Every structure is written in C-alpha cells, then in structure tokens.
C-alpha cells in the first residue's frame, strides 16, 4: 500500500470574483521510502500541492491519505508530526532574531515533547552540524548551513514524510551536492519518504524514482526515471522541459509563449 495517496484534489484560491482554480484533479501515490518528484512551469501549482499535503490549505476537495489515515479524520497535530516541509529560501525561512536552539525547540514545545535538549542535539547531528551551532543566529551561518538548520527543524518531530520545496535552488552547485547527499543519507537512516519539487530535471532524475509534470494546475504526465533517461516522454511540455533543461539550444530558439 502507498504511504501517501492523493486523489482528485481541486483547490480554488482568491476571494469572490478573483477566485481561481489553482489545482485541477491532482492524483498520485508515493510508496514508503520513495522520493517522488514534482516539476512544472512557474505558477503551475507545485508548491500549492505540497501545502495541501502539509495541511496548510484545508479547503480543497478530493482526498489525501497518509499511512491509511485520511486528512479529514486525522488529528491535526498528529498529521503535522508525520508530515514536515522544508522551504526553498534558507534566508527567509528561519527567524533572524532566534538562535538555532530556539528555532529547533519551537516545534518540540508546540507538540509538547520532553527531552528537548537531547532532541535538538540529535537533529543537529543528523544534518552534520556540531553542537557549537546551537547558540548561533541564522545570519552567522552560510547558505548551506542555514538549509541544514531548516532540515533539522523539519526532522526534530521525527516525521515520516518530508515535503521539499526547491530545497537547493538558492544554493551553489557545490553546496547543492552536499545537501542532496544528505537527503539520500537521511532517507536511508530514518526511513523517510520525500516529495521533492524542483525546476531542475537533473536534480529530479538524481533523486526520484518517479515524478509528475505539472502545467496550469494539472498533472500532464507521470514518468519514471528510466523513461526520462531513455527520453520516453510524451507530453509536449515535458519535452520542452527536457530540451530546455540544463542547456540552451542556440540552433532552435524557443517560440514565444508569454
């Protein structure tokens, strides 16, 4: 049975006459231990899908189940402990005036965990940061270290699922390699399951066994990594993505489509 099962999610955002349909019939399943990717053009709804799974939006229709529990029937706090999110921006997502120890303690306090000190130490160790980082502020860390703190914050509650929204796109490629390796190690060690959003097909190919391609609120195609490597893509948008990804084709400038 799949760990995450999403079926037929519709979501509208915006009030009154400005209301727009943002997600249209989103369905996919993710097995335990798998990394499932989401790619697609800017504004196609990738972050919104993650927000729905994380419970940050609640007014969608359809069904989202994790480990057999549906979102409606589950206890909110329990859901949140199971499903954690890591955001794109390692600068914006950490409170600038809080020490790293406070940032990691906050979710533990909300969920009334004991033994907070030990848990913080453990999470920092899991992301490869030593105890000396505890008392620093975010501005005293490099971009890669900040992203590690953001991952540690997601890990302190011992979730089963991490939702990763462009977790490396603000980082240099050398730091990206460290963070992607870390995700792979953590997946093994902690038996995690990931949903990963990225605009970089090579990152998706490296991390994910399968991924969905989104366009304008819909999933246009679900592909396995093997199909991608063999170039077996069918949706025109996926092909454009594959062709534009990682390189610029001087011979064939793209057609305008604003």
């Amino acid at each position, binding site marked *: 049975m799949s760990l995450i099962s999403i079926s037929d999610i519709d979501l509208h955002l915006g009030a009154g006459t400005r209301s727009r349909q943002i997600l249209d019939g989103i369905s996919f399943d993710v097995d335990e231990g798998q990394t499932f990717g989401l790619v697609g*053009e*800017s*504004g196609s709804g990738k972050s919104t899908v993650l927000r729905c799974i994380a419970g940050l939006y609640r007014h969608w229709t359809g069904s989202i189940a994790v480990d057999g529990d549906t979102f409606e029937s589950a206890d909110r706090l329990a859901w949140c402990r199971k499903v954690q999110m890591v955001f794109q921006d390692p600068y914006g997502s950490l409170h600038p005036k809080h020490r790293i120890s406070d940032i990691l303690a906050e979710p533990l306090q909300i969920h009334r965990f004991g033994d907070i000190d030990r848990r913080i130490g453990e999470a920092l160790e899991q992301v490869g940061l030593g105890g000396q980082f505890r008392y620093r502020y975010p501005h005293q860390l490099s*971009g890669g270290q900040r992203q590690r703190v953001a991952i540690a914050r997601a890990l302190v509650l011992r979730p089963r699922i991490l939702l990763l929204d462009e977790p490396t*796109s603000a980082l*240099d*490629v*050398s*730091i*990206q*390699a*460290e963070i*992607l*390796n870390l995700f*792979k190690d953590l997946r093994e060690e902690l038996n995690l399951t990931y949903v990963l959003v990225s*605009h*970089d*097909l*090579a*990152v998706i*190919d*490296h991390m994910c066994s399968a991924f969905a391609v989104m366009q304008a609120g819909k999933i246009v195609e679900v592909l396995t*990594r093997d199909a*991608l*490597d063999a170039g077996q893509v069918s949706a025109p*948008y996926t092909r*454009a*993505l*594959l062709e*534009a*990804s*990682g*390189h*610029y*084709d*001087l011979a064939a*400038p*793209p057609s*305008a*489509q*604003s």
Partner: protein
Amino acid sequence: MTDPILSVKNLNVRYFSARGLLHAVRNVSFDLGREKVAIIGESGSGKSTVGRALVRLLPDIAKVNADRLSFEGKELLSLSERKMQDIRGRRISMILQDPKFSLNPVMSVGEQVSEAYLAHFKVSRAEAKKRAIEQLASVQIRDPEHVYGLYPHEVSGGMGQRIMIAMMLIPDPAMIIADEPTSALDVTVRAQVLSLLDDLVQRRGIGLLFISHDLNLVQSFCDRVLIMYAGQVVEELRASELHLAQHDYTKGLLASLPRIGQRRDRLSVLNRKQDWARDLERQP
C-alpha cells in the same frame, strides 16, 4: 580579438566595512568583444562586485582601482560622475537578478517603459506610449496593450524580467551586464529571455557579460567563461571546452552536478584547498 568593447586589466575592489577590510576582487583582467562572456563562481566569489565596479555602482565603502578599465576607448575610472551617468544610461545596461526589486511598485510597468523612452528621446507622451507598447511586443510579450497597465506585482517573474529587458534596450546599449538574469525563471521562460539576449549579441553586436552560477547553461549559451574563486579569475576557458578545465575548483564544480542519464548514488562534493585562494600573478 579586434578592438574590444570593454577592456579590464588588474581590477581590484576592497570593501572597508566595520568588520574590517575585504579584498573582494583581486587583479581581475579580461576583454569583452561582440560576444557572450560568462563569469561563474560560488556565492561571495566577487561576481556581482565585478559587474557593479564596471558601472561604478558600488557603495562608498568600496575602493576600486585598475590598471585599465576602458569602455569604447574611454577610461571609466577617470570620468566625472555626470559623464558616467550618461554612459550608464545610454551605453551600458545592467539587468539585475530580481526584477521585482528593480521595477517601481507603484507605477504600471508600461508607464515605466514610457518614462525610460521619454528620458532618452524628445517625443510626446502619446508617442512614447506607442513606442513602449512596441518595445513590450519586441520582447515577446503577448497582448502588450493589456500588460502596459499592469503593476509589477501583477506580472510573473519571467514577464518582469522581459519588461526590464525592454527598458534596457531603449537607449541602444553597446554592452549589457546581466547579473543572474535567469535564476528566478523557470526553464521555458528562461529560454525565451536567453534567446532575446542572444539575438541582441548576434544582430546588434552588443557585448554581453553574463554573471551566473549555472554551469550547464553557461556552457551552452556563452562563448567564453571566466571562473572566479575568492575574488580572482582562477581559470578562463572557451565555453565549449569547459569540460577540459584544468583547475581543481572548476573540475570540482563540474563533478558536483547531477546529470540526466548519468546515474550516481552520491554526488561528489567539493574538497576545498587553501591553495586555490593564494595570490595569482598580476598581468604585466
């Protein structure tokens, strides 16, 4: 190369801040002709500082010197601020990473293009508006009349970037400095912006300095690549020969990239050597 548009020899930039002195750019030398030259390097390596030094847009705490910083035969460092402003507006354009910060949030994007037009040509407002709409169309914006009236927060990242480019093209620049112009864009929009820039180099003979940390992109889009590390250009290569890099830093960067179809369990990570930051020889 015959008469480069820009020639830089031993450019140095030092920041004197409360935290002390930082020698952010060290003896950087390069020429730019009618071509696309990339500067790549990690965050903090000095790429933007080089770009800003060329248009003299650094804060007061920055001290700039160079043996040569000549643009179209003029020595930029010895020009008056007024002359420099003139060059900045007319001959050198700069595209910044985040268009939303560069556009005025309380003015419609079309009016901003019109204003740019009025600043350079003696025409009526009606004429400026007409030209502005043409300019928007020329950067592949569909329905430019409609987009003219939108405010910056109402346009997507890719559109914002193209509007910036439309504004930049009005004065007919000889050189464009593009500081991470596409990192905020998704690949399909990115391809459109690049093809616009490419077109300018091919058809108008503009020199493009392209600051980026996207190795794959630079390899296929640019003609030459300067690799910066800790303020110095540690290696310079033809873009098509990036894979022949000799410097360990460049090799390390290339090895750390995931690539479609080359499956590896782990990506290789950079093993920094102190040696990479040591002073290189100055150009004579």
